[in-house]
């Protein structure tokens, strides 16, 4: 049930956003208190075509459903994280959401100062300077098992290679990461692991563009991999990675999107590995509105439909669909566990 509802909500988000743009919200169902939710983006900003954007989508949806007052601050550089979080906390917001791994230390600092304010952080925890989780009772960590999503698209890539159903099947696929940091590598770990599970002889090229904003850089990396016989390219580099999808289209091979459903980014996109930051953001807000805030980690994975995949511009062979369903069920049940570190 929950599975279906979440999926529906995901689709509804976009529609609701349009509605928002046209008229604004009309308040939530009879609540006397209007909850105040503050969202602080990392330096990628709201138009990053990645998790900052998705967090905003979740926020807007919550606004429509619960009639919350939502405010957003985009951070233009990293020295703004603490002041921006403090801004909302000092104004007694009911929930302050920090988006992204880069904000861990800032959330740790500010949540120490405001023990009565609730915080949530995407992709991280409130940490001290050494990166240790402070385990504050007012901080909820929203983690994702990106490796689950990576594994699903890895199954697809591996199966297509093994059965000769990709564009130029030579048992070589590629992944282009932004920077070698945990959220990126989790995706690639699941992808490589699952591809090898499907097609043991496969070669998985892993490259980094060193960038999250410049599509040209990722495009060059993708091209190099395609030139090395890769014919399925997985992008894990936000806005930069759009160049990967495009290069795949121009080289006549397949590509796989990341974070959000990137079906529209290029016709070559056969699937997207989904990290449902919108669902996580929405859930965190919902918990606060319903008085069910809990501290500690909330992990979004295939098991709770917080991670997964979207099928895009490819009609799947029935056997592949069956294989995907099988693996998804196994991961869901815990009989298969994709690794968090990139396997050798």
């Amino acid at each position, binding site marked *: 049930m929950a599975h279906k509802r979440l999926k529906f909500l995901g689709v509804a988000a976009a529609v609701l956003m349009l509605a928002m743009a046209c008229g604004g919200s009309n308040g939530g169902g009879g609540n006397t208190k209007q909850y105040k939710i503050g969202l602080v983006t990392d330096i990628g900003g709201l138009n990053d075509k990645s998790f900052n954007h998705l967090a905003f989508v979740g926020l807007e949806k919550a606004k429509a459903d619960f009639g919350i007052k939502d405010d957003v601050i*985009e951070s233009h550089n*990293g*020295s703004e994280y603490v002041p921006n979080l403090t801004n909302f906390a*000092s*104004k007694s917001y009911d929930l302050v959401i920090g988006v992204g791994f880069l904000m861990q230390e800032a959330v740790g600092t500010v949540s120490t100062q405001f*023990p009565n304010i609730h915080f949530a952080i995407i992709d991280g925890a409130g940490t001290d300077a*050494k*990166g240790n989780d402070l385990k504050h009772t007012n901080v909820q960590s929203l983690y994702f098992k990106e490796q689950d999503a990576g594994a699903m698209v890895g199954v697809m890539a591996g199966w297509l290679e093994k059965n000769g159903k990709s564009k130029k099947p030579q048992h070589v696929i590629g992944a282009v990461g932004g920077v070698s940091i945990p959220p990126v590598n989790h995706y690639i770990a699941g992808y490589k692991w699952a591809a090898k599970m499907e097609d043991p002889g496969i070669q998985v090229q892993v490259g980094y563009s060193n960038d999250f904003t410049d599509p040209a850089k990722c495009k060059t990396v993708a091209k190099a991999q395609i030139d090395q016989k890769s014919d399925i390219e997985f992008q894990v580099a936000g806005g930069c990675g759009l160049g990967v999808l495009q290069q795949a289209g121009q080289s006549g091979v397949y590509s796989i999107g990341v974070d959000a459903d990137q079906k529209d980014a290029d016709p070559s996109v056969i699937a997207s590995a989904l990290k449902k930051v919108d669902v996580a953001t929405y859930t965190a807000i919902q918990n606060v509105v319903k008085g069910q805030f809990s501290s500690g980690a909330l992990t979004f994975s295939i098991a709770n439909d917080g991670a997964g995949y979207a099928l895009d511009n490819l009609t799947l062979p029935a056997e592949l669909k069956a294989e995907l369903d099988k693996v998804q069920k196994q991961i869901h049940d815990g009989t298969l566990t994709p690794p968090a570190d990139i396997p050798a």
Partner: protein
Amino acid sequence: MPPIARRLAGGLAMPLGSVVLAFVIGAVIVAVTGGNPLDAYSGLLCGGLGIACSQGENPALQVSTTIVYVIPLITTGVAVALPFRAGLFNIGAEGQLLAGMMACTAIGVKFSDLPSPILLPMVLLGGMAAGAVWAGVPGILKATVGAHEVVTTIMLNYVAQWLLRYLIIGGPLQLAPGTSKSLTIGPGAWLARVLPNDNSLVIFGLPAGVFRVHTGLLLALVAAAAFAFLLWRTSLGYEIRAVGQSQRAARYAGVSVARTIIVTMLIAGAFAGLAGAIQIAGVDHNLTDIYFSDTTGFDAIAVALLGLGSAVGIVLAAILFGALHAGGSVMQADAGISGSLVFVLQALILFSIAANFIGQIRRLIPGLGRPAALPPEMPPAAPMMTEAAVPPVEP
């Protein structure tokens, strides 16, 4: 009006006019794109100076945040203004600042057990030395082979940025694999805060820990004073100004132009490096990826230009840009206007000062302002500073 007051008014008219002009154009841009300029600017005012806050912001907190931004702006502002006086354009304050941060962190981590009276001077001086090296290279290249300092400093900015990334991702300062930050510097290297960093203490209605103003503010003010003293009260300052006015004349007067250029850049780099060290010692205590996107060294150019290269002017201009920086966030939260407007305003201020729009407007409308206060022909901004056209505000 006494002459000193008139001169002051004349000196202030251009920068103030430039700021006002920029805000007017900014308001037009906001209005044309469907926003409300009044909302935007009241958000800026509240966020920057803690005045007229309508959404429950704490004025003391806003002022504190602004001051934290102002501290490095003053020090890097000096690092740009000093070479201006010698006719040099230091676009490299950013790289020098980063060099200072890297050195401060490296020393603070390496000798983390040393007590404060030893370690704190070590990290600050280390930061200054690193900044001086980073600026000294362009200085030497300029003095010896004539390589343009604008280009060399831009190149070194990028080198510093990538070096920073290397150090904390995969390099020797990295905390642990998978992280993009360094170890924490020893407590002995921390600059004390102005208010106790104690969250159980409530000041101005908030836990004291949120007020991040630190004693680096004093260092920054001392740096500004040192700049004024150096420029107007020492023979080196005389040489710097002489070189800035005319290298040929300076040479006739027996000044070694090459030596002055190198020394000027070394000192400027030391100021910028100090800014970086203060930032690490006073605010962050470790080197993190937040400085990949730092722009302090570029904002410093605006600070130096708007401050007309005087110590008081630099402090005032740093307050303006620090307030804009802090205000941008509040403007977005309260008025829903993208904080990027702040960059637009900053650029407009730069255009306006550089092109001396105010002077041009005055010339077109002679009745405006006090024509006697300004010479009819105002030279462009940077040369203006080098030619000492502005009277010193310092004693």
